[in-house]
């Protein structure tokens, strides 16, 4: 393995890491602020890709439109789910939220599989992002370069929004002590609802990013969600910066495994998870 090829693999790892980061970010936001372990996240990511496909097929709206519309549409379904179902569960144990969202994920995936089969649907890279950059040590597809930059931007913006703005401060305060924040005249339930919608929108956005490069199929979410959960556990449940850094970091580690011992590439993340749980059960960036 030459150094050049190694650089190529590191970059690839970063690309996958950007998906992990984007998805685990949504999970971390939802868990951090709502205390819900959102197992529907994978299905919502999948819905994002499918809605992008429908916009293309039925309305003739391409990729760029999809980036703007899809998070809103799928986020709105998230709002409905929160209002109708999740709301009832906040006072109960985490386990109930987990079971509910897991059940929903199975139902959504089943419905999509029933209607569209498992082989998936075609979706192409937008014209302006086809082609490759020759970096000397590898060919970087323009589209992948775009995905890294875009997801890095979104991750940092989300972190800034929650950790550094007044709105974020309200949100964090509302999770610590909802009654007190409400007493200051802030509509806490609505804020929580919108937060869930936002987290779901992030998943859908990742789905749009994924549509041109992965198979758009009902099982695309379930293949990814388990890894993403491992990322969240390693990073520390609820830690936003933690999930971003861990997402990118694990992408790179997985990429390197694909070179040195490809057979282990789909287990390496879980091995790391087991080790982290033994040494630091709250996760690398989590607080006790």
């Amino acid at each position, binding site marked *: 393995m030459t150094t050049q*090829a190694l650089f*190529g*693999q590191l970059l*690839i*790892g970063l*690309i*996958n890491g950007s998906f992990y980061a984007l998805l685990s970010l949504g999970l971390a936001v939802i868990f951090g602020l709502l205390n819900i372990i959102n197992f529907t996240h994978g299905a919502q990511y999948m819905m994002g890709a499918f809605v992008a496909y429908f916009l293309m097929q039925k309305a003739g709206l391409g990729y760029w439109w999809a980036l703007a519309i899809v998070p809103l549409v799928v986020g709105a379904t998230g709002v409905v789910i929160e209002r109708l179902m999740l709301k009832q569960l906040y006072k109960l144990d985490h386990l109930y939220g987990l079971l509910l969202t897991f059940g929903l994920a199975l139902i959504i995936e089943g419905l999509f*599989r029933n209607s569209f*089969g*498992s*082989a*998936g*649907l*075609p979706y*192409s*890279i937008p014209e302006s992002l086809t*082609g*490759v950059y020759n970096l000397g040590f*590898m*060919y970087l*597809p323009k*589209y*992948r370069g775009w995905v890294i930059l875009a997801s890095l931007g979104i991750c940092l913006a989300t972190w800034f929004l929650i950790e550094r703005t007044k709105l974020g401060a309200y949100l964090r305060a509302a999770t610590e002590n909802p009654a007190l924040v409400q007493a200051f005249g802030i509509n806490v339930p609505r804020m929580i609802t919108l937060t869930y919608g936002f987290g779901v929108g992030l998943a859908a956005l990742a789905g749009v990013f994924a549509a041109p*490069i*992965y*198979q758009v*199929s009902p*099982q*695309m979410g379930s*293949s*990814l969600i388990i890894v993403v959960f491992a990322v969240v556990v390693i990073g520390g449940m609820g830690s936003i910066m933690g999930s971003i850094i861990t997402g990118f970091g694990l992408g790179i580690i997985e*990429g390197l495994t*694909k*070179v040195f011992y*490809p*057979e282990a*590439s*789909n287990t390496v993340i879980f091995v790391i998870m087991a080790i982290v749980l033994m040494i630091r059960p709250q996760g690398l960036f989590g607080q006790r």
Partner: protein
Amino acid sequence: MIFKRKILVAAAAMALSAGAAQAQISGNVVKIGVLNDQSSLYADLGGQGSVTAAKMAIEDFKAKEKGLTVEVVFADHQNKADVGSQIATKWIDAEGVDVIVDVPNSGVALAVNQIVRDKKKVFINSGAASSDLTGAKCSPNTVHWTYDTWMLANGTGSAIVKQGGDSWYFLTADYAFGHALERDTEAVVLKSGGKVLGKVRAPINTQDFSSFLLQAQASKAKIVGLANAGGDTINSIKQASEFGIVKGGQKMAGLLVFLSDVHGLGLDKAQGLILTNTFYWDLNDQTRAWAKRFAAANGNKYPTMVQAGVYAGVLHYLKAVDALKSDDGTKVVEQMKKTPTDDPLFGKGSIRVDGRKIHPAYLVEVRKPSESKGPYDYYKVLATIPADQAFRPIGDGGCELVKK
């Protein structure tokens, strides 16, 4: 004394045959179990479509008019050998299933092969590819209907080497099927004077192949051989176009590509792929008529060769059961091997003593979007490989049922 002994023998024989007469069709029902992937990466190439195909075979055989009660059950093996084994055992021991059909995923199929053999039932495999099922692991209770890795390697592999693709890099699914396909193709490439520059094994159901593709690109091999199937093939082809592998002068060879995969990829990504199938719906009037009926019952999805194989296999099985008036597994398979096969999808053919079903194979090329008249008009037949050349010579497989 001699006279008395003769009477005794005759009486014993009568008693035996009377006993056999009662045990002809177990439970008075012929029960067909369709065992496959119902929910994941192989669900579109088999899945519910295979159940539909089995039901169509029962209908076309006119089982009821012939006095046979035939039932179909199905289950999802989730691509796990332990789950598949458990279902097969339960079906046979507790639910009176007489024949298990389809079973894509060679890992699961090899497990079911052994169970069915131990329990002396019937296994008609359509979905799994490993040529070991009629080679080292062959069984008197198994018929391998549709295709196998040897046939794919010799169809697609040798056609590509002949076109000048003489250096290969394999991207292989890391389980029984991928290993068998890689092994059989490598043998063909080496025999035809080509060389193999390297290989990488990716876990089944991988989402991102870019790392593996980059390794293939770095190898500078002329051909990137995809020894994988279903969703894995779709993802690797989709991502290869992104990394400019084809533009860089390398070619992708999908060693096992189904009609459903081409549909999922779209013609603009799949065009120009060369592949081998043993069934395509647009071959003749009979296949077209059957495919239209099938699509109507299967959500407008056209049949893959796996689903066609389930239909033809069940049809031939029912003929054998009807001829024997028995569903005794080992005897039915013997009868299936004795009788020439004839069905609207694969035409006339036969089943060899090692369990290999013999029929022609078709080397096809995926059409350009401009050449296609509509959905599922995807293939251009380049060549027909005659039945006697399409499959591994019977002496080469190392099957114990073949007399040396």
